[in-house]
Every structure is written in structure tokens, then in C-alpha cells.
């Protein structure tokens, strides 16, 4: 089985982002970029499938500008066999990304498409679902556990009510949640080897994909600060205030 994994270049999760003073966006000047952490988990899962003999080949794909190749190199250092760089310099909406990933999927015909559940920059949490919808294949989002058995996968999903188990026919899109696994540390020799692994570069035109409608961002603002509320003097007042807010 082939496993396809999509990875996205995002602002590193340790960076405290700052909104620009003029509201035109977030300050990305000199900011550290990394692979989206949920994509790392997806990547790790794919490599474990390969190590377990379930997958024969792991292919990483990214959509982005020239620098996104750094994240593909990380994916290759994790253990992907090869990588596809869909070079797009503009921002890509989730639906456009889904169209691109659909085209890559159709070209590669993987048995499983792993992704992170969402990217930590725009927090959209849409691309996996949209890709599987366009492909007309099953989706298993928020995966906390994944078992492959022949042409079926059993996925334990982390939902609000608890842990939901579903079974899907393969191929399917599975999106990784935090507890699916803990990604390994990359080793220096693997990082070196990754430099020599093949990366294929394609454009949206090569894939025959046109951009889908998206949203226009008109303003970016810092989150409203929380303000101090009331001070109570006694426990009775506290209980009354909680009741007043319908919290107890």
C-alpha cells in the first residue's frame, strides 16, 4: 500500500505571533517556520505503517512557495521515500488545497491519505474533509488510533463525547489528532539522507487544477483582552454570582 501524507509550512508553534500595527496581518518577519505539528503526527504514523510492513511507500506532498521544500525535507528525514512539491506562491484556500490534493491523489493512487487535523496557522480544519468529499472517499477525522486491516481501516476518533470508533473502506482520508502518536526525534544521518531523496516539483497547471473560491481577509486584529469582572466578598456572593450566570 502507498501512503500519501500532506504537510504544511506554518509558523512554529513556539512562536508568539504578533498582529501588525496596521491590521494588515500577522508579523512574519524573521519568524521561525516549521512543519505543522499535526502533520508531523500524520507523518510519524505513515512511517510507523511502513516500519510495520503495512505500507510499502510513503510519499509526502506540500503546497507552497520555494521555502516549503524545507518541510518536505523534514518529511523525508522522518522517513518518506519521496516528495511532491506543488509550487504555489499565493495563499491557497482550503478548497483549492483540496482540489490540488485530489489531483495528486488521483495521480498517485495511494491506499491511505494521512493529514494533520488542522494547520495551526489559519486553524481552518477543512482540507482533509474537503479532499475526501471531492474524491468521494471516506474520511476519519481526529484520529487517535488507526488500525489497517486489508482494505479496511478502523479508526478511533477523538470526539467531544469520548472516543468514537468507525470503520472505513480504503482508500480513505485520515486526519491525525494529538494523541495518535508522539513523533520521533529526527536523527542527523536521516536529515542528511533526506537531502538526497527525490522531490518532484509540479504546478497547479501541471495538475490541471484551478483555484476555488475563498474568503477575503479584510482585517487582522489582536484578540480582545479579558477584562476584570466583579469582586465578591463572601462565598454566598460567589455562589449567587455563579447562579446568576447560570453556571451552577
Amino acid at each position, binding site marked *: 500500500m502507498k501512503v500519501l501524507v500532506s504537510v504544511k509550512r506554518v509558523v512554529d508553534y513556539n512562536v508568539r505571533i504578533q498582529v501588525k500595527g496596521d491590521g494588515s496581518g500577522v508579523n512574519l518577519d*524573521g519568524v521561525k517556520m516549521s512543519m505543522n505539528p499535526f502533520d508531523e503526527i500524520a507523518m510519524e504514523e505513515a512511517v510507523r505503517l511502513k516500519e510495520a510492513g503495512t505500507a510499502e511507500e510513503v510519499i509526502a506532498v506540500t503546497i507552497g512557495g520555494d521555502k516549503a521544500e524545507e518541510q518536505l525535507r523534514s518529511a523525508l528525514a522522518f522517513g518518506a521515500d519521496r516528495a511532491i512539491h506543488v509550487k504555489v506562491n499565493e495563499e491557497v484556500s482550503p478548497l483549492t488545497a483540496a482540489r490540488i490534493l485530489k489531483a495528486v491523489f488521483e495521480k498517485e493512487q495511494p491506499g491511505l491519505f494521512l493529514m494533520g487535523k488542522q494547520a495551526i496557522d489559519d486553524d481552518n480544519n477543512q482540507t482533509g474533509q474537503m479532499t475526501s468529499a471531492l474524491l468521494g472517499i471516506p474520511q476519519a477525522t481526529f484520529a487517535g488510533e488507526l488500525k489497517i486491516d486489508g482494505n479496511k481501516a478502523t479508526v478511533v476518533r477523538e470526539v467531544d463525547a469520548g472516543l468514537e470508533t468507525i470503520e472505513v473502506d480504503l482508500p480513505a482520508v485520515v486526519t491525525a489528532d494529538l494523541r495518535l502518536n508522539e513523533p*520521533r526525534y529526527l536523527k542527523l544521518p536521516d536529515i542528511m539522507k533526506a537531502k538526497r531523496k527525490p522531490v518532484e516539483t509540479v504546478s497547479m497547471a501541471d495538475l490541471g487544477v484551478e483555484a476555488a473560491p475563498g474568503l477575503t481577509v479584510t482585517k487582522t486584529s489582536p484578540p480582545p483582552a479579558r477584562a476584570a469582572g466583579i469582586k465578591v466578598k463572601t462565598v454566598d456572593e460567589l455562589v449567587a454570582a455563579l447562579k446568576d450566570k447560570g453556571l451552577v
Partner: protein
Amino acid sequence: MTENEAVERDVMEYDVVIVGAGPAGLSAAIRLKQQNEDLAVCVVEKGSEVGAHILSGAIFEPRALNELIPDWKDKGAPLNTAVSRDDIYFMTGESGAFKMPGLFVPKTMHNHGNYIISLGKLCRWLGEQAEALGVEIYPGFPAQDAIIEDGIVRGIVTGDMGLDKEGKHKEGMYTPGMELRGKYTLFAEGCRGHIGKKLIRQYELDNDADPQHFGIGIKELWEIPAEKHQPGLVVHSAGWPLDLIGTGSLGGSFLYHLEDNKVAVGLIVDLSYTNPYLSPFDEFQRLKHHPVFKQYLEGGKRLSYGARALNKGGLYSIPKMVFPGGALIGCDLGTMNFAKIKGSHTAMKSGMLAADAAATALKAGGQGADVLESYPEAFKASWLYDELYRSRNFGVFLHKFGALIGGALNFIEQNLFGGKLPFTAHDRKRDHETLVPASQAQKIDYPKPDGKLSFDKLSSVFLSSTSHEEDQPSHLQLTDASIPIDKNLPEYAEPAQRYCPAGVYEVVEEKDGGKRFQINAANCVHCKTCDIKDPAQNITWVAPEGGGGPNYSAM
């Protein structure tokens, strides 16, 4: 130092291994490849990426860069803001100051021809140049120790990953560090490098040198209202909130106008300060309320925060540079020119000189066991030596005579004698020996931060984007765990609580009235001040798990 035979480690071999991707290390790497493109050169860096741990003012003198990459402008080096004006103030109190007439400013403080930059950004650019030449750079991999065999440095071993708090292997995560062996190893860890410190001791490199002296630099990056912003303006000050006449607390402050309405503001406090109640962090916070600073910062927004120790001992504090199989370069060696408050160009030059020496030795078939004597020889013949010689008395005058009188002496030496007064001053008291007992010291009542110009420590550390894996052995090691509470607390009111700019050290009162020394290692911004200033020299800074530490964007 590393005789860890129990662990099987991967080994990679290089011609030259460089520890630290700062200006010295990257310049050395670039120079090596320029001398011989076939050399295998590798740079390890403890930060999560190149530049993540770089913090400097910074005013940059392009002399070394002109030599290393003459067409830096065409290649897009981030030197965007030329210095347009130098203002120097003597601060007489919390609102008083007088501006020093240009005539009396020591020549070393003139910045015509220099640039206001983010050194972090310059290092990222240098990293790209180095990689384009074929240098392998590995961020997120700290060198934990030197490999020393038969007295010869053979490379370094990177830190183990996946150890828990007790140092035990974490299930499925433990990844042993690997050996990076080089015919020569250049140490460019920056000020008070933790391996450099051990090498200096082991090879007795500082036997003939004066003690090194240090300062702590605390810096913030601000975005200020456009109408207050004057790109290229440089403001320096001495005196309040530190001493102007006395010598108990010395230092100086800076405010540089970069591009895009950004200003860098900071305070350098000499670690020779005497009052254990002094808090460099709080001195810096109150400094920003002085009208000289407030006039620019008011209405602005703080973007980033960080701190780093720096060496200021100068020429006579520089230890021996070489040992079998390797060399110290940059601030790991101590090449900062304190008279100019600049160390980037000197660090770069020292890296280039060491690289030349290594390239020459390798060309001659050197296998690395030897001592690169041609490096100190070339140093003596270089403009770097001349520059440091002229500045040799600068810091000492200030230490001995204070900001005003010492400053006057510096004016006389630098402007009238070109830095060549016919004598050399020495300062032999180490920075950890200067504190007076708490019982004889005056407590300092710092004002509460207002949340607009001044802030508390934890919200500041937040803006350094520092992060460490929580479940790992503490990288701040106490030789004797009882000293903080049993000795430092009664004698010096445990100064670590105050000299640490990141809130790492706390003395916590237990419910039963007992006291406990708490180390919040995850807050650490890797400034190394604790390793320097602890009066008992009981704290040893070692590298945490790879990638840990601050994530500075443009510092």
C-alpha cells in the same frame, strides 16, 4: 570529557566541525569553503533554527563582512538602516539627563558608516550563504561535550534526546546524541560557552590572561508610532538607573531606530555590580520611564524580549586561543570590543582567521592533532588585534573610575591618544567575587510595572518565545544543592532570584516556614548570567535538549 562507552553512538566525520551558528561560527564556515570548496564542514547549533538564540543590539560595523562577502549588498544582506545620528546622554536621575556634545564623545562611539541591524536576521542570511557553499548546518542539535582523546580534541558529541527528568530513557523516544568528529573543531558558542568554559579550564588557556569580565544585556524590540520613528537614530546613555559617579553598578543603555517603525531598546549591566539586591531586569524596566526613552516608546507596543551575557574584558582577558585539534573563536574566546559595544565584526574576523589557519593546515595534509598556531599569529598581525589593543583600557577605566570619570579618561585615551596611552590597566577581581553581603547592602525598591512601558518578568519571558521540553533533566545544574538556601540566602539574599532575567530561580516559602530553591529551567533564555554571577560558582549551565531555548525572530 566524554567517555560514555555504554551508549552506541552514530559517528559522522568532517574536516572541520563548528559549534554554534552565530557570526563567528558561520563566518568560519564560509571562509573554509571559500579557501577550499572540497572541505567537509559542519555547523551544529543548539537553537531550533539559525538565529533563534542570537541576541544583540545591534549596531554593525561592516568591516569583516566586506572582507568575507564583498558583494553582500547584491546578495541581499539585511543591512538596511545606516546610522544617521548618534545621541549620547548622561542620565543624572529618573528624569534628568544632559546630552554629551559630539565633541566629547569617545571616537569609538561614533557610528558613521555602521548599520543598525538584527543580528539574528544577519545570521540567518549568513547561514543561507554558508549552505549555498555546501556547509552542513544542523540547528536543534546542541554540542553537549567535546570528544577528547589523548589530550586532543577530536570533535563533539551532540546531546541525547528523550531523557526524562531523572535522566532515564523515555520509552520509544530516547535518541542518543551522535559523535561529530572533525580534524579541527572550532568552538563558537558565544559568551560563556559551556564547552568553551571546560576547555579553558582543562587546557589552562587563561593562565596568562586577566579574568574575563561580563555584562548582561537585556533587550526588547518595540513597534513605535510612525511620527516618533527616526530610522538610523542611535541613542546611548550612561548613569541612571545605574551609577554615574560610583562603581557599584555600571552599564549603559541603548535605543536604536531600525526600519518599519521598529526600535531596539536595552540595558547592559556590568556583572561586576556589588549590591546583591540589584536586579538588572528591574533596572531596565524603570529605565524605559526616563524621558529620554519614554519620548520614543510611549504609545508603542513591545514585540519581543530577550537577554544575553556578553564579555567585556577585552584584549588582556582573552585566553590562549588554541589547543590540540581546535580553537576558540568569537565571544567563546572573548573578542568583543567593549569600547565600541560591538562584538559581531570582531567575532566574524576571529572566525575567519581561525578558518584560514585550519584551511592552511588541512591543505598541508594536517590530520588535526596539532595546535593551529598560525591562528593566534595571524590574529596578532590583524586589524582585530590593533582594534582591541586600542580599546584595552576602556572597560577597566569604567570599572575603576565610574561612568563619568572613567568616561572622561576614555575620551582622553580614545580621542587624544588614538587608544594608545603608554600604559595598560588591569582589573583582576572576578565578577562573582564583587557582591557585598546583603546585611551591608541597601535594599532596592523597584517600582511596579505599569503594563505600558514596563512589564513583569514572566510576561517578558513569554515574548522571548522560549520553550523547553518539560520532562528532561534540568540543564541548570547545582554542584551542591544546599548552597542556595544554606549559604547564598543568608549571605546574599540569594541573588539568582534577581540577576536571572527570566524568572528561572525562585526561593519558595513552604507552608511550614521552610525555604526551598526552585529552578524553573523551562523559562531559561540561555543568557548564562547564573553561570557567571553565582557567588559560590555553584550553577553550571549545560545545553538542554535540542531546539530548547528562546525563539527570537529578529533580535
